[in-house]
């Protein structure tokens, strides 16, 4: 292993002014974060499947619950494959300082889905009720996922994380 030169000398001798060097570093950070961000279509695959599963389950029959479970399982696999193929970075900020506490987000989401699933709606409301629920659940889930991703990107750009947060 060769030893690099460490020098506290003149930065301009090495070709860049300090301001220029910091500007280049910032530009490189920003570009790397932009290129490796999780694409919106991966989230879209997940929320479409999630919405379809929840919407199907609102019919509240044994058959529709099974179909909903199958749709959800397929969604998980499809999202995992899409995420893997579009994955260009390792390391997400995992600390307790996201835009909204993640546990709370999931709790609210779960409560909404549970309450919607328990609502006794007349059969004549279907399939419009199920379709409406699917669209609302998918829309809210999409907004939540994108907000989380944008929050991650903002913090990565600023270097706003602790020694053990980037995992």
């Amino acid at each position, binding site marked *: *292993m*060769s*030893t*690099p*030169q*460490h*020098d*506290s*000398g003149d*930065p301009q001798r*090495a*070709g*860049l002014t*300090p*301001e220029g*060097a*910091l*500007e*280049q*570093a*910032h*530009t*490189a*950070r920003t*570009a*790397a*974060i*932009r*290129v*490796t961000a999780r694409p919106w279509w991966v989230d879209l695959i997940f929320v479409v499947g999630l919405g379809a599963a929840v919407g199907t389950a609102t019919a509240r029959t044994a058959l529709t619950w099974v179909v909903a479970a199958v749709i959800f399982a397929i969604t998980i696999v499809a999202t995992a494959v899409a995420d*893997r*193929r579009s*994955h*260009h*970075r*390792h*390391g997400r900020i995992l600390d307790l300082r996201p835009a909204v506490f993640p546990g709370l987000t999931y709790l609210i989401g779960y409560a909404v889905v549970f309450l919607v699933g328990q609502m006794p709606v007349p059969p004549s409301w279907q399939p419009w009720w199920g379709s409406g629920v699917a669209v609302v659940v998918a829309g809210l889930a999409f907004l939540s996922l994108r907000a989380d991703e944008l929050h991650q990107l903002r913090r*990565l*750009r*600023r*270097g*706003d*994380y*602790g*020694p053990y947060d*980037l*995992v």
Partner: protein
Amino acid sequence: MPEPHTPWEPVEPRFDEFIHSPNRLRICAALDTATALEFGALEESLGISTSLLSKQLRLLADAGYVRVEKRPQGFGRPRTWVRLTTEGRRAYRGHVAALRDLIDGA
């Protein structure tokens, strides 16, 4: 002016002429945003040729600042991942701190 980093740990400002080379500085800056970046993504981020990136990564690896490894995928060809070593991350952050000191002292 870019926003300052919140350092991971108290960083000792240390000007590093090896990192100060424009391409190596940009490579380290990009790698500092992740635990590892895929080679193709790094190439696209920096907009430099494959051969130049490979050469600079080899130099950085020889200096002990980065690690390059091929990882097999569940499907498809193995992909090359690049990451800063602990020493590399410390050197990069120390260099950035030194640059800030130089600007503040000017």
